C-alpha cells in the first residue's frame, strides 16, 4: 500500500516553521519535516511527543549497575571466595568503580541501540530523500495528502505562501 505525500522545499528554517504552523492550523497531518540540522523548536511546533529515551536509559543504567554488582559480589564472595590481602570476601566499596563503569556502559550502549531501532537506522540503509540537498541547505516538509481536509490546491497555496521554492508529490510505503 502506498501513501501519497506532498513535499515542499524551502531555503530557510523560518519558512519551514511557517509551513509547519500553517499545516497544523489547517489540521493537515505532517508526515515529517527534513532539515540539515536540528532546528530548535521545530519538534515542538510539529507536535512531536517527547521521546521516552531517558526512561530507557534509566532502566539500562539500573540493569548495568545491578548486573555489575551481582557479578562482583557473586564471583568474589559466593562462587569462589578467595582471601585477597585479608580483605572481606565482599569488599563492597571496592566494587563501586566497576559497577559505575558498567552502569554507564550499558546505559549508553542500550540507549543508542534503542535509538537506532526506534529511528529505524542501520548500517547500509538507503536514505529516504524527497529533495536533493536536504542534508545540505534545504528545509523540507512532507504533508499527508490523503488525510487532508482541505483541497490540494489550498495546500499548495499554503506552502507557496510560506516560501516554498518547489512542491511535488512523493509516494511512500505505508
Amino acid at each position: 500500500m502506498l501513501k501519497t505525500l506532498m513535499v515542499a522545499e524551502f531555503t530557510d528554517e523560518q519558512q519551514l516553521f511557517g509551513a509547519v504552523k500553517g499545516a497544523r492550523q489547517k489540521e493537515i497531518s505532517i508526515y515529517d519535516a527534513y532539515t540539515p540540522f536540528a532546528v530548535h523548536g521545530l519538534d515542538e511546533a510539529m507536535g512531536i511527543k517527547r521521546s521516552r529515551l531517558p526512561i530507557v536509559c534509566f532502566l539500562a543504567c539500573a540493569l548495568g549497575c545491578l548486573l555489575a554488582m551481582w557479578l562482583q559480589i557473586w564471583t568474589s564472595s559466593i562462587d569462589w571466595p578467595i582471601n585477597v590481602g585479608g580483605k572481606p570476601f565482599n569488599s563492597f566499596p571496592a566494587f563501586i568503580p566497576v559497577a559505575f563503569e558498567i552502569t554507564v556502559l550499558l546505559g549508553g550502549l542500550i540507549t543508542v541501540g534503542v535509538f537506532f531501532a526506534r529511528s529505524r537506522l542501520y548500517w547500509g540503509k538507503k536514505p529516504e530523500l524527497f529533495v536533493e540537498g536536504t542534508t545540505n541547505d534545504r528545509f523540507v516538509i512532507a504533508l499527508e495528502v490523503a488525510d487532508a481536509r482541505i483541497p490540494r490546491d489550498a495546500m499548495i497555496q499554503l506552502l507557496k505562501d510560506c516560501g516554498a521554492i518547489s512542491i511535488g508529490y512523493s509516494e511512500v510505503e505505508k
Partner: protein
Amino acid sequence: MSGATSKFRKPLVEGEKNYSQVTHEILAPLEGKPTRGWYGAFVIAFIAFAIGFAMVWYQIATGIGVWGLNKTVGWAWDITNFVFWVGIGHAGTLISAILLLFRQKWRTSINRAAEAMTIFAVICAALFPLIHMGRPWLAYWVFPYPNTRGTLWVNFRSPLLWDVFAISTYFIISLTFWYIGLIPDLATARDKVKTAWRCRLYGFLSMGWNGSTRCWHRYEILCLILAGLATPLVVSVHSIVSMDFATAVIPGWHTTLFPPYFVAGAVFSGFAMVLSLMIITRKVMAMESYITVNHLEAMCKVLLLTGMMVGFAYMTEFFTAWYSANPYERFVFINRATGPYAWAFWTMVFCNIAVPQVLWFKAVRTNPTLIFIISIFVNIGMWFERFVIITTSLHRDFLPSSWAMYSPTWVEKGTFLGTFGLFFTCFLLFIRLLPMISLGEIKSVLHFGKGAGHA
C-alpha cells in the same frame, strides 16, 4: 540575515556564510587533493608510528627487560605515557559533553576534532597497560569470563582492574558519542561527495539518515543523555586512573587528593593538546573562520583555571606531607624537590605553574603563536607531572637498601614516539576522511552573535 554584530556576543563563525557554503568549505578536504603539508606530516607521523610498532614488536618478542625498569621502579615511562595520553583524551569528551550540558555554544567548532583526539589518545593510552604486561598475550585474563579453571574470576579489588573497565567503557562511550555526532554529517557528505567509494562508505556509515525531524528530536535527546553519561564518566576515568596510585601504600602515591587533582590535570593537559592541535589545524586546513580566536581565548581561560588548580594540588601535596609528620611522606617530597629527579620536578613546576600565568593577559590569550608555545609547555609539563609522581615515589620508598635509579632505554623512547605517530596518523586520516567540524552544529550557530534573531 542582517550583518549587524551583537555588542555582547562575538560571532562563533566569522564572515557572511550561507549553509551551502559551510557544507562546501567543511567538506572540501574530503575530496580535494591533500596539500604537500599534509603529505609531509603524514609521512613523518607514519614513520614515527612504524618505529613505535617495531619497538613494541621487539619488546614483546624479547621481554620487558628491554625497558629500563628494575626491581624497585616497576613502572616508569609506560604508565607515565598511559596517564599522559588518558589525560589528553579527556578534553574531547569534556568539551563535547560538559559544554553541551552547559549549553556553551562555542564548543561546536572544536568538539568533533576534540572527540576524535580523545579516541586516538585513548587508543594510544590503552596500548601502554597492554604492553606493560610481562605477558601481554594473556591480557584477556583481566576480563571476568567463565573458564575451565574452576571458574577463576578476577580481583575486583584491584584498581588496575577498575582501570580496565574504566578505560574500555570510556573508549566505547566516547567512540559511540563521536559516531552519533558524525551520523548527520556523514549523511551530508554522502549526498555531497562524488567519488563512488566515498559515496558508498559514507552511505553505509550514515545509516540512511535523512534529516527527519522525528529523528532529530530523538537524536538531540540521545546526545544530551550521552553527554550526561559521559560527564561523570570523564571524572570517574581519571579518578580511577589516579586510584592506581592513591590506593597503593607507597609514599607519594598514597594520597586522597589524587582523584580531583588528576581530573583537573587531565582537563589541563587535554585543553593544552586541543589547543596545540587546533592552532595547527585551523592554519593548515584554512579553518580560521570556524575556529576563531574567540574559541582559542575561551580555551585559554580554561587552561589558566585548571593550571592553577593543578598548582594548588602540588602545594597541597607538600603541605600534607609536612603536616602529616609521616617521615616517609616527608622524605618523598623533599626528595622530589631536591633529589636526583629534582630537575624533572622543577620542569613540571615551570611548565605547569609558571608558564600559564602569562594567560592572564588578553594579548597573550588572543595570540595563536604564543598560545601554541604555551600549550606545548603545558603538554611537556603534564608529562613530567606523571613521571614525577610515578618514578620519584617508587625509586626511593621505605627501605633505602632497595633505592634505585631509573633511566629509559631507546625502546621506551621509540614506543613513546610511536604513540605520537599513531595519534597523528589517525588524526591526519581523520581530517581527510571525516568532516572535522560538526556541520549540523555549526549551521545551527551560524547566525549566533550576529543579531539575526534566530531562536
